[in-house]
């Protein structure tokens, strides 16, 4: 599968121009920052604040923005036109995902700084956050490709929001409802496990286990998004 940095960059620049002129969508950039300011006001050690902030932002910013970018292209038939140009699957997916990845990284970095969160291991935290951004960008791509309009895209992220953002909360009830143990394997729950690792006395396994879970989810969901895009090349 070919990849052209020039073509991906052209798509990125086009998306950036569209995003900056789309106030309804660009306002989503402030969601994590607003939550960070609220949580900081409640005190820097508010339990679960960082997990809630990250998992919510991944859905409301990363996944939603990506779903909207794709759904709008589908609604206006520009995705079909793009598919008819020499841009390959990788050019389009990387070009279109790069904007959401960059914006999410910037917005979340500012939010974490505002919140004043200090991770037990910086490299593990950065890796988990970056993999999660890729994961939720791919989920957004899938939602966008399944949507025909922007309204559809807004509804399509509801299941993602319930299943992914809600998993750590659902897992709290695993003792009462053993079936909910499965929620521990969701990437959002694994991220919370990673964030809850104590700052002293942790083992490497405490960090690598949740990280591997998140990485595996990222790989699987990204592959699914690529396959789905390739199927959409056909207008059957």
């Amino acid at each position, binding site marked *: 599968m070919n990849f052209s940095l020039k073509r991906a960059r*052209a798509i990125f620049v086009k998306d950036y*121009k569209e995003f900056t002129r789309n106030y309804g969508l660009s306002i989503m950039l402030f969601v994590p920052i607003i939550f960070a300011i609220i949580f900081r006001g409640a005190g820097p050690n508010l339990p679960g604040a960082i997990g809630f902030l990250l998992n919510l932002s991944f859905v409301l910013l990363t996944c939603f923005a990506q779903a909207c970018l794709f759904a709008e292209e589908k609604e*206006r038939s520009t995705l079909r036109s*793009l598919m008819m140009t020499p841009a390959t699957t990788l050019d389009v997916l990387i070009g279109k995902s790069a904007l959401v990845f960059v914006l999410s990284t910037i917005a979340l970095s500012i939010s974490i700084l505002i919140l004043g969160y200090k991770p037990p291991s910086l490299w593990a935290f950065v890796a988990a956050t970056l993999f999660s951004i890729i994961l939720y960008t791919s989920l957004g791509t899938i939602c966008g490709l399944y949507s025909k309009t922007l309204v559809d895209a807004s509804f399509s992220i509801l299941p993602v929001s319930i299943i992914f953002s809600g998993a750590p909360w659902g897992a709290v009830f695993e003792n009462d409802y053993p079936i909910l143990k499965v929620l521990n394997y969701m990437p959002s729950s694994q991220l919370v496990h990673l964030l809850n690792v104590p700052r002293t006395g942790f083992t490497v396994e405490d960090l690598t286990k949740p990280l591997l879970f998140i990485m595996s989810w990222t790989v699987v969901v990204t592959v699914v998004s690529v396959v789905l895009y390739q199927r959409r*090349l056909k207008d059957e």
Partner: protein
Amino acid sequence: MAVIRVEHIGKKFGSRAVLSDVSFSIAKGEIFGFLGPSGSGKTTLIKLLTAQLNSTSGQVYVFNEPAEKMLQSVQKMRFGILTDNSGLYERLTIEENLQLYRQLYSLPTSSIEKALQLVNLSGERKKKVKLLSKGMRQRLLLALAIIHEPELLFLDEPTSALDPVNAAHIYEGLRCLNSNGTTIFLTTHDMAQAELLCSRIAILFQGQVRVIGTPKELKHQHREHIVCVELINEESYELPINEETADQISLWMKSGLINRIETKEPSLSDIFIKMTGSELL
């Protein structure tokens, strides 16, 4: 050399057959017009030729390769397409839309000006797409389709939203592209322009090609063997072409009674109506 070769293709959506046993070929440098009423399968055919759909039966070859290969970047560089499914980025300007395509096709900056001139939009380049009229949008879509001066151009109703002046400008541009070697496959409802522009024409009806040939051949095949005579006293006659009519005309001519004499040649619209039994919508 055939740029497009279609052999007995059929396409079904569920149990509904949209195309059945369609065969034709298009040589390099031709302007091939596909005429047919709405829903006759014209757009489906373009989608099959550009690998957006798979045929249910038969074979499609474009540039001597199976149509499936049209999804490869190398092949996409060779063709341009404008259909109902083509879209524009509303928040960007005309120039920004073209800029994206210029970069996707790795073209020089001058290609934007060339494309704008061809569709008569040079003066509007800074306008946002959401402020454009339907006709201007159609012209921009055409500019995006031809910016890379493709070897093969698919056009689905390229002038459907245009006024006669802009339509004429577009057709002039297409002639210019064609003279530079671009093969054009177009569907249109504009019979008069199809007749002037197309080197060959096919009429598609209910998923089947009913007639195919040059406009001259089609007119010859479907001509009515009738001669129309108008006399100086304003009487007019439609007479069958035979010896008796020849004698009668000869007699009138000797007497200096004939004002006008012509054979009755069908227009493409007449042929279309004859083939499909319906007016073109």
